[in-house]
Protein backbone atom coordinates (compact mmCIF):
# COMPACT_ATOMS: atom_id res chain seq x y z
CA UNK A 1 0.00 0.00 0.00
CA UNK A 2 2.83 2.39 0.80
CA UNK A 3 5.30 1.03 -1.71
CA UNK A 4 7.52 3.48 -3.51
CA UNK A 5 6.31 1.97 -6.77
CA UNK A 6 3.08 3.54 -7.86
CA UNK A 7 0.07 1.30 -7.77
CA UNK A 8 -1.50 2.95 -10.83
CA UNK A 9 -0.03 4.71 -13.84
CA UNK A 10 -0.30 8.47 -13.36
CA UNK A 11 -2.46 8.90 -16.47
CA UNK A 12 -5.11 6.63 -15.00
CA UNK A 13 -5.68 9.08 -12.16
CA UNK A 14 -6.18 12.15 -14.31
CA UNK A 15 -9.93 11.61 -14.48
CA UNK A 16 -10.32 10.77 -10.80
CA UNK A 17 -11.99 13.45 -8.66
CA UNK A 18 -9.92 15.33 -6.08
CA UNK A 19 -11.94 13.92 -3.21
CA UNK A 20 -11.39 10.32 -4.35
CA UNK A 21 -7.69 10.99 -4.84
CA UNK A 22 -7.53 12.25 -1.28
CA UNK A 23 -8.80 8.88 -0.06
CA UNK A 24 -6.10 7.14 -2.09
CA UNK A 25 -3.58 9.62 -0.69
CA UNK A 26 -4.58 8.83 2.88
CA UNK A 27 -4.10 5.13 2.06
CA UNK A 28 -0.52 5.86 1.09
CA UNK A 29 -0.87 5.90 -2.70
CA UNK A 30 2.17 7.73 -4.08
CA UNK A 31 0.58 8.21 -7.51
CA UNK A 32 -2.36 9.99 -5.89
CA UNK A 33 0.08 12.27 -4.06
CA UNK A 34 1.78 13.15 -7.34
CA UNK A 35 -1.46 13.68 -9.24
CA UNK A 36 -2.88 15.93 -6.52
CA UNK A 37 0.38 17.88 -6.33
CA UNK A 38 0.48 18.48 -10.09
CA UNK A 39 -3.23 19.25 -10.29
CA UNK A 40 -3.64 21.54 -7.30
CA UNK A 41 -0.30 23.36 -7.07
CA UNK A 42 -0.81 25.71 -10.05
CA UNK A 43 -4.21 26.86 -8.84
CA UNK A 44 -3.13 27.29 -5.22
CA UNK A 45 0.07 29.12 -6.14
CA UNK A 46 -1.70 31.43 -8.59
CA UNK A 47 -4.39 32.31 -6.07
CA UNK A 48 -1.85 33.05 -3.35
CA UNK A 49 0.13 35.20 -5.77
CA UNK A 50 -2.94 37.22 -6.74
CA UNK A 51 -3.77 37.89 -3.11
CA UNK A 52 -0.18 38.69 -2.08
CA UNK A 53 1.54 40.03 -5.21
CA UNK A 54 4.80 38.33 -4.28
CA UNK A 55 5.94 35.02 -5.71
CA UNK A 56 8.20 33.95 -2.83
CA UNK A 57 5.50 34.57 -0.25
CA UNK A 58 2.91 32.97 -2.50
CA UNK A 59 5.01 29.80 -2.71
CA UNK A 60 5.29 29.65 1.07
CA UNK A 61 1.53 30.07 1.46
CA UNK A 62 0.76 27.52 -1.27
CA UNK A 63 3.11 24.95 0.25
CA UNK A 64 1.60 25.49 3.70
CA UNK A 65 -1.97 25.22 2.38
CA UNK A 66 -1.19 21.96 0.60
CA UNK A 67 0.62 20.60 3.68
CA UNK A 68 -2.57 21.24 5.65
CA UNK A 69 -4.52 19.35 3.00
CA UNK A 70 -2.16 16.36 3.25
CA UNK A 71 -2.55 16.34 7.01
CA UNK A 72 -6.33 16.54 6.93
CA UNK A 73 -6.65 13.82 4.26
CA UNK A 74 -7.30 10.88 6.65
CA UNK A 75 -10.15 12.82 8.27
CA UNK A 76 -11.61 14.28 5.07
CA UNK A 77 -15.39 13.95 5.07
CA UNK A 78 -16.56 12.99 1.62
CA UNK A 79 -19.38 15.02 0.14
CA UNK A 80 -19.14 17.95 2.54
CA UNK A 81 -16.86 20.31 0.65
CA UNK A 82 -14.88 20.40 -2.56
CA UNK A 83 -11.14 20.12 -2.08
CA UNK A 84 -10.59 23.28 -4.12
CA UNK A 85 -13.16 25.23 -2.10
CA UNK A 86 -11.36 24.20 1.10
CA UNK A 87 -7.99 25.16 -0.39
CA UNK A 88 -9.16 28.59 -1.56
CA UNK A 89 -10.39 29.26 1.98
CA UNK A 90 -7.12 28.13 3.58
CA UNK A 91 -5.04 30.16 1.12
CA UNK A 92 -7.12 33.27 1.81
CA UNK A 93 -6.72 32.85 5.56
CA UNK A 94 -2.96 32.33 5.29
CA UNK A 95 -2.65 35.37 3.01
CA UNK A 96 -4.68 37.48 5.42
CA UNK A 97 -2.32 36.51 8.23
CA UNK A 98 0.69 37.54 6.17
CA UNK A 99 -0.84 40.78 4.96
CA UNK A 100 -1.67 41.74 8.52
CA UNK A 101 1.98 41.22 9.39
CA UNK A 102 2.90 44.02 6.99
CA UNK A 103 3.18 42.45 3.58
CA UNK A 104 1.29 45.29 1.85
CA UNK A 105 4.43 47.42 2.10
CA UNK A 106 6.61 44.99 0.11
CA UNK A 107 7.24 45.79 -3.57
CA UNK A 108 5.54 43.78 -6.28
CA UNK A 109 7.54 40.76 -7.30
CA UNK A 110 7.17 39.34 -10.78
CA UNK A 111 5.13 36.17 -11.11
CA UNK A 112 7.53 34.72 -13.68
CA UNK A 113 7.97 34.61 -17.42
CA UNK A 114 4.90 34.73 -19.63
CA UNK A 115 3.74 31.24 -20.45
CA UNK A 116 2.65 31.64 -24.04
CA UNK A 117 5.78 31.12 -26.14
CA UNK A 118 3.89 31.81 -29.41
CA UNK A 119 3.33 35.46 -28.67
CA UNK A 120 5.83 38.11 -29.68
CA UNK A 121 8.17 39.78 -27.22
CA UNK A 122 6.27 43.08 -27.52
CA UNK A 123 2.96 41.38 -26.85
CA UNK A 124 4.50 39.54 -23.92
CA UNK A 125 5.72 42.78 -22.44
CA UNK A 126 2.35 44.45 -22.86
CA UNK A 127 0.58 41.47 -21.39
CA UNK A 128 2.96 41.43 -18.46
CA UNK A 129 2.57 45.17 -17.93
CA UNK A 130 -1.19 44.82 -17.95
CA UNK A 131 -1.14 41.95 -15.47
CA UNK A 132 1.32 43.76 -13.21
CA UNK A 133 -0.79 46.91 -13.27
CA UNK A 134 -3.81 44.87 -12.28
CA UNK A 135 -1.83 43.23 -9.49
CA UNK A 136 -0.82 46.65 -8.16
CA UNK A 137 -4.41 47.84 -8.38
CA UNK A 138 -5.65 44.71 -6.58
CA UNK A 139 -3.41 45.54 -3.65
CA UNK A 140 -5.28 48.82 -3.26
CA UNK A 141 -8.52 46.99 -2.53
CA UNK A 142 -9.70 45.91 0.93
CA UNK A 143 -8.91 42.21 1.48
CA UNK A 144 -12.45 40.87 1.07
CA UNK A 145 -13.07 42.87 -2.10
CA UNK A 146 -9.76 41.68 -3.52
CA UNK A 147 -10.53 38.05 -2.73
CA UNK A 148 -14.02 38.27 -4.25
CA UNK A 149 -12.78 39.99 -7.43
CA UNK A 150 -9.93 37.51 -7.89
CA UNK A 151 -12.22 34.50 -7.41
CA UNK A 152 -14.91 35.90 -9.72
CA UNK A 153 -12.98 37.55 -12.52
CA UNK A 154 -9.60 35.78 -12.61
CA UNK A 155 -10.36 32.31 -11.23
CA UNK A 156 -13.77 32.63 -12.94
CA UNK A 157 -15.72 30.84 -10.23
CA UNK A 158 -19.48 31.17 -9.85
CA UNK A 159 -20.96 33.38 -7.16
CA UNK A 160 -22.42 30.47 -5.13
CA UNK A 161 -19.01 28.79 -4.91
CA UNK A 162 -17.36 32.09 -3.96
CA UNK A 163 -20.02 32.54 -1.28
CA UNK A 164 -19.11 29.10 0.06
CA UNK A 165 -15.40 29.89 0.07
CA UNK A 166 -15.83 33.24 1.79
CA UNK A 167 -18.62 32.17 4.13
CA UNK A 168 -20.98 34.95 2.99
CA UNK A 169 -24.20 35.23 0.98
CA UNK A 170 -24.34 35.37 -2.82
CA UNK A 171 -25.70 38.91 -2.51
CA UNK A 172 -22.68 39.91 -0.44
CA UNK A 173 -20.39 38.42 -3.10
CA UNK A 174 -22.15 40.44 -5.78
CA UNK A 175 -21.77 43.60 -3.73
CA UNK A 176 -18.07 42.97 -3.04
CA UNK A 177 -17.24 42.23 -6.68
CA UNK A 178 -19.19 45.25 -7.95
CA UNK A 179 -17.42 47.60 -5.55
CA UNK A 180 -14.09 45.94 -6.24
CA UNK A 181 -14.46 46.28 -10.00
CA UNK A 182 -15.36 49.95 -9.67
CA UNK A 183 -12.31 50.60 -7.51
CA UNK A 184 -10.05 48.66 -9.88
CA UNK A 185 -11.39 50.62 -12.83
CA UNK A 186 -10.57 53.88 -11.07
CA UNK A 187 -6.99 52.78 -10.43
CA UNK A 188 -6.42 51.36 -13.89
CA UNK A 189 -7.81 54.43 -15.66
CA UNK A 190 -4.96 56.37 -14.14
CA UNK A 191 -2.46 54.02 -15.78
CA UNK A 192 -3.76 53.87 -19.33
CA UNK A 193 -0.49 54.79 -20.99
CA UNK A 194 1.38 52.10 -19.12
CA UNK A 195 -1.18 49.53 -20.18
CA UNK A 196 -1.00 50.50 -23.85
CA UNK A 197 -4.61 51.56 -24.32
CA UNK A 198 -5.46 54.19 -26.89
CA UNK A 199 -8.28 56.69 -26.60
Amino acid at each position, binding site marked *: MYDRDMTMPLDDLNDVADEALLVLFANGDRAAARTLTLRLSPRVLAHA*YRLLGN*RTEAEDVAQEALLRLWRVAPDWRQGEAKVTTWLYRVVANLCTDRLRRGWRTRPLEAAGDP*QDSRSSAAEDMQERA*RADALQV*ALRELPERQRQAVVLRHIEELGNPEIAGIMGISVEAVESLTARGKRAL*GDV*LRGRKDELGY*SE
Partner: protein
Amino acid sequence: MSKTGKPDDELSAAFAAARRTAPEPDADFLARVLGDAEAVQDALKEAEVAERSAPRRRGARASIGWRGVFRALGGWPAVTGLSAAAITGLWLGAAPPDGVSATAQLVWGEDITLALQPDIGTELFPDEEG
Protein backbone atom coordinates in the same frame (compact mmCIF):
# COMPACT_ATOMS: atom_id res chain seq x y z
CA MET B 1 -7.13 43.09 -26.35
CA SER B 2 -9.07 46.27 -25.82
CA LYS B 3 -8.60 49.24 -28.08
CA THR B 4 -11.71 51.17 -27.13
CA GLY B 5 -10.56 52.44 -23.79
CA LYS B 6 -13.90 51.60 -22.15
CA PRO B 7 -13.53 50.75 -18.46
CA ASP B 8 -15.11 47.31 -18.81
CA ASP B 9 -12.90 46.47 -21.78
CA GLU B 10 -9.81 47.58 -19.89
CA LEU B 11 -10.72 45.49 -16.88
CA SER B 12 -11.61 42.46 -18.96
CA ALA B 13 -8.28 42.71 -20.79
CA ALA B 14 -6.43 43.03 -17.49
CA PHE B 15 -8.21 40.00 -16.00
CA ALA B 16 -7.43 37.98 -19.13
CA ALA B 17 -3.78 39.05 -18.93
CA ALA B 18 -3.67 37.97 -15.30
CA ARG B 19 -5.00 34.53 -16.27
CA ARG B 20 -2.52 34.13 -19.11
CA THR B 21 0.46 35.21 -17.04
CA ALA B 22 -0.38 33.20 -13.94
CA PRO B 23 2.71 32.04 -12.07
CA GLU B 24 3.48 28.41 -12.83
CA PRO B 25 4.99 26.21 -10.13
CA ASP B 26 8.60 25.39 -10.95
CA ALA B 27 10.34 22.07 -10.36
CA ASP B 28 11.77 23.10 -6.98
CA PHE B 29 8.38 24.14 -5.67
CA LEU B 30 6.72 20.95 -6.90
CA ALA B 31 9.49 18.89 -5.30
CA ARG B 32 8.92 20.63 -1.96
CA VAL B 33 5.17 20.08 -2.10
CA LEU B 34 5.56 16.44 -3.12
CA GLY B 35 8.18 15.97 -0.40
CA ASP B 36 5.66 17.23 2.18
CA ALA B 37 3.00 14.92 0.77
CA GLU B 38 5.18 11.83 0.93
CA ALA B 39 6.43 12.74 4.41
CA VAL B 40 2.82 12.92 5.63
CA GLN B 41 2.09 9.56 3.99
CA ASP B 42 5.15 8.05 5.70
CA ALA B 43 4.00 9.45 9.04
CA LEU B 44 0.53 7.98 8.51
CA LYS B 45 2.06 4.63 7.69
CA GLU B 46 4.28 4.73 10.79
CA ALA B 47 1.30 5.59 12.97
CA GLU B 48 -0.64 2.68 11.47
CA VAL B 49 2.24 0.26 12.02
CA ALA B 50 2.74 1.49 15.59
CA GLU B 51 -0.95 1.00 16.31
CA ARG B 52 -0.88 -2.53 14.94
CA SER B 53 2.25 -3.51 16.87
CA ALA B 54 1.15 -1.98 20.17
CA PRO B 55 0.73 -4.63 22.93
CA ARG B 56 -2.86 -5.78 23.08
CA ARG B 57 -4.54 -5.45 26.44
CA ARG B 58 -7.13 -8.05 25.69
CA GLY B 59 -7.03 -10.70 28.43
CA ALA B 60 -4.83 -8.59 30.65
CA ARG B 61 -6.17 -7.48 34.00
CA ALA B 62 -7.09 -3.93 33.42
CA SER B 63 -7.96 -1.63 36.25
CA ILE B 64 -11.59 -0.69 35.74
CA GLY B 65 -12.09 2.26 38.05
CA TRP B 66 -15.05 4.64 37.93
CA ARG B 67 -14.48 5.48 34.28
CA GLY B 68 -14.64 1.81 33.39
CA VAL B 69 -17.86 1.42 35.32
CA PHE B 70 -19.22 4.53 33.70
CA ARG B 71 -18.43 3.21 30.20
CA ALA B 72 -19.67 -0.27 31.06
CA LEU B 73 -23.02 1.19 32.06
CA GLY B 74 -23.35 2.84 28.68
CA GLY B 75 -22.11 6.36 29.30
CA TRP B 76 -24.12 9.43 30.28
CA PRO B 77 -27.52 8.48 28.81
CA ALA B 78 -27.61 5.17 30.68
CA VAL B 79 -26.27 6.66 33.90
CA THR B 80 -28.86 9.42 33.76
CA GLY B 81 -31.61 6.84 33.50
CA LEU B 82 -30.14 4.85 36.35
CA SER B 83 -29.91 7.98 38.48
CA ALA B 84 -33.58 8.73 37.94
CA ALA B 85 -34.53 5.18 38.86
CA ALA B 86 -32.34 5.24 41.99
CA ILE B 87 -33.83 8.53 43.11
CA THR B 88 -37.33 7.15 42.57
CA GLY B 89 -36.51 4.25 44.83
CA LEU B 90 -35.15 6.51 47.53
CA TRP B 91 -38.08 8.89 47.27
CA LEU B 92 -40.65 6.16 47.71
CA GLY B 93 -38.92 5.03 50.89
CA ALA B 94 -40.10 6.00 54.36
CA ALA B 95 -37.59 8.76 55.04
CA PRO B 96 -36.13 10.32 51.94
CA PRO B 97 -32.87 12.11 52.63
CA ASP B 98 -32.91 15.91 52.40
CA GLY B 99 -30.55 15.97 49.47
CA VAL B 100 -32.88 13.94 47.31
CA SER B 101 -35.77 16.36 47.48
CA ALA B 102 -34.13 19.03 45.40
CA THR B 103 -32.88 16.55 42.83
CA ALA B 104 -36.20 14.81 42.45
CA GLN B 105 -37.93 18.16 42.14
CA LEU B 106 -35.70 18.95 39.24
CA VAL B 107 -36.40 15.59 37.62
CA TRP B 108 -40.14 15.33 38.09
CA GLY B 109 -41.37 18.83 38.75
CA GLU B 110 -43.35 20.53 41.49
CA ASP B 111 -46.51 18.37 41.43
CA ILE B 112 -44.90 15.10 42.49
CA THR B 113 -42.87 16.75 45.21
CA LEU B 114 -45.95 18.28 46.78
CA ALA B 115 -47.87 15.02 46.65
CA LEU B 116 -45.21 13.22 48.69
CA GLN B 117 -44.61 15.84 51.39
CA PRO B 118 -45.45 14.48 54.92
CA ASP B 119 -47.29 17.68 55.95
CA ILE B 120 -49.33 17.89 52.79
CA GLY B 121 -52.57 17.39 54.75
CA THR B 122 -52.07 20.40 57.03
CA GLU B 123 -51.29 22.65 54.08
CA LEU B 124 -54.17 21.64 51.87
CA PHE B 125 -56.84 20.96 54.56
CA PRO B 126 -56.14 23.30 57.56
CA ASP B 127 -59.70 23.00 58.86
CA GLU B 128 -59.43 19.28 59.48
CA GLU B 129 -56.33 19.79 61.62
CA GLY B 130 -57.94 22.43 63.76
